[in-house]
């Protein structure tokens, strides 16, 4: 079930997975998954709980080490790299933001910069805050607990971007937000992504989010990729019955929302 995004050459490939397999006890979380992602592309991993999408994401920065197969970032097999050094080059945004509650916003955003020993950490953290739409003068000295959910996610994105990573991983970054905040953040993120031409991998269970934010959508089911394609191709030509059902269900769910707006 190895499916690649078409039209890429090895020079511009930021991320690749080849026959990546992971088992947790008797459960097969990933079953020989392969994909490649060109620079500047945005991949959405979509599927139900237990489909393996988060596990796959976590193999990219070695939070999970696969049982078999190879993951390469910037052309280098990640299993040959110190995981701590690897993670400092890869941005990461968890679902709940994962801000350190005992640090102010500024210190949180400086985290990766300081780990990398950047001399201008304070300055770069402030521009990252500006980038995600938070005025440093107002937000830099706030405590995470004094922020709204949307603001917290923006800070988490700023923290992930501040170190200018070659790859950005987001694990259901907008899943816990209310609908309006989520829509705002999705728009803001789409703008940032385009401006930076950042290579991103986004885990989501929301097909609309995937279609909105991704250049490539991979539908996962039971540890395998059912189909990987551009949003337009996916909608126009679902490869399996499962993808078709997924699209139909999403359309049914989307219609009332469109009527309201």
């Amino acid at each position, binding site marked *: 079930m190895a499916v690649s995004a078409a039209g890429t050459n090895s020079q511009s490939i930021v991320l690749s997975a080849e026959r990546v397999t992971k088992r947790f006890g008797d459960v097969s979380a990933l079953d020989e998954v392969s994909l490649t992602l060109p620079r500047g592309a945005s991949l959405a991993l979509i599927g139900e709980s237990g489909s393996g999408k988060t596990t796959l994401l976590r193999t990219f920065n070695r939070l999970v080490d696969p049982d078999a197969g190879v993951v390469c970032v910037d052309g280098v097999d990640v299993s040959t790299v110190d995981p701590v050094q690897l993670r400092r080059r890869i941005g990461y945004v968890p679902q709940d933001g994962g801000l*350190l509650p005992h640090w102010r916003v500024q210190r949180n955003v400086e*985290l990766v910069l300081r780990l990398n020993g950047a001399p201008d950490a304070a300055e770069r953290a402030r521009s990252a805050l500006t980038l995600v739409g938070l005025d440093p003068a107002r937000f830099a000295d706030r405590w995470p607990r004094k922020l709204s959910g949307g603001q917290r996610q923006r800070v988490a994105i700023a923290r992930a971007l501040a170190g200018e990573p070659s790859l950005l991983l987001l694990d259901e970054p907008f899943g816990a937000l209310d609908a309006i905040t989520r829509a705002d953040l999705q728009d803001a993120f789409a703008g940032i992504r385009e401006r930076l031409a950042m290579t991103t991998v986004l885990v989501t269970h929301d097909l609309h989010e995937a279609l909105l934010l991704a250049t490539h959508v991979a539908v996962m089911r039971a540890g395998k990729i059912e189909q990987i394609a551009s949003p337009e191709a996916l909608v126009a030509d679902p490869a399996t019955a499962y993808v078709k059902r997924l699209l139909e269900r999403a359309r049914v769910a989307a219609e009332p929302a469109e009527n309201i707006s």
Partner: protein
Amino acid sequence: MNVVAIAALFIQLATQGGRATPPVVVASKPFGESYLLAEMFAQLLEARGLRVVRRPGLGATEIAFGALRANAIDVYPEYTGTGLLAILGEQPMGDAEAVYARVSREFRVKYDVRWLPPLGFENSYAIAVRRRTADSLHLRTLSDLGAASARLRAGLTPDFIGRADGLPGLQRAYALHFRDVRALLPAVKYQALAAGEVDVIDGYSTDGLIARYDLVVLADDRHFFPPYQAAAVVSPRLAKDNPAAIAALAELSGRLDDEQMRALNKRVEVDGTSVATVARDALASLSLDGATRATDVAASTGRDGMSAYMRAHWREIGHLLARHIVLVAVSLLCAVAVALPLGLVLERMSGRAESVIRAVGVLQTLPGIALLAFMIPLLGIGVVPALVALVLYSLYPIVRNTFTGVRDADPAAVAAARALGMTDAQILRHVRFPLAMPVIMAGIRTAAVIDVGTATLAAFIGAGGLGEPIVAGLALADTRMILSGAIPAALLALAVDGGLAIVERWTQPET
């Protein structure tokens, strides 16, 4: 050259100090007569020109005798019957001279401890009831008590309940079956009997309190209790090195009879005269007196009010409070220094952590006296074993809270820190530890408050602190004395709790 000269001087001084006779350490067990006899020993030694250190109120027989064997104390008053039954573990025998001969030979052979010739009086256990109970049930002897015991409740000292020469033997000898047996300390015991909470108590035949509460002592008509002749027992070191002290102490041998002792105990326990004053008067009446101690407590005799007592003793209480604070502070710092790193290490080895923490928890369930008695051969008596015991008692809440605080620190923050490239050591130092701080502080606070209470135990091994007046007050049935230790201890606990609550708030991650 100078350095060598100074070093030589030091060595000279040190060896001189070593050669000079060390002070005689005089101790007692925690009950009135023992305090009084020890004070008489001390004043007599001082009158004969010897230096004395007082360690009154050592926990119980095991602690006092353990300390004597280990040369941590030099002399304390003991009773031949206790020596025979409680220390040697032998069967009771009837004849007073035979018991004395037996214990003095066995102690010399087994422990190198000497019994000086008996002081002259006997102080046996005395089973006592209220006069009203005795009259209504026609109780005169312990045999009478046997028949009536099913209706009566007994309140006995823990010591007596456990010892072969105490309740177990007495039950067999007189077929006693009390309706209820409660363990009570001396002061509480007499008050409980007077208030009708219990009907039967154990006392000592020379007890001043028996007269104070108008109790009836039941005759030991089957001669169950062996003779308890009082005598000074002397450490191996004193016996070998200080003949002058032995000679001075022997001056008291044979000089005190039962009636004199009862009168002396009554002055202390009933009239509330200070132990030092009664001891001085007693020595004077025996023509054994000499120098009067300058440090004698500004004898607030009589049973005047609490505030008057506090005013008369504030300087002493201040010293005890200061010692108490030092005990708590030093033991708490040591406990933090041990428990905090231990908690952090345990977090790294999650598999065995629970069993280690449980083992630390078991330490806390050890009875204080048992722990102290156990440490005497290793550490002697005084401040060092007290601190060790306090540290052991303080470890558990700090280890437990450090471990769980660090382990359960905000999982989302920890996961994010790892995903962004922090090493385990960085996560521990910059994320887990600061986030666990309030939980750790709560553990330290718990330990500190427990410590203030537990530090009163230090009095049992002569380490001072507010436990001293509590133990002495319980022994002498002197409520003012108990409160003069208990009230400052309670206030100290509140202050420590309040102070650490403020520190705890500082450690909160958010303003």
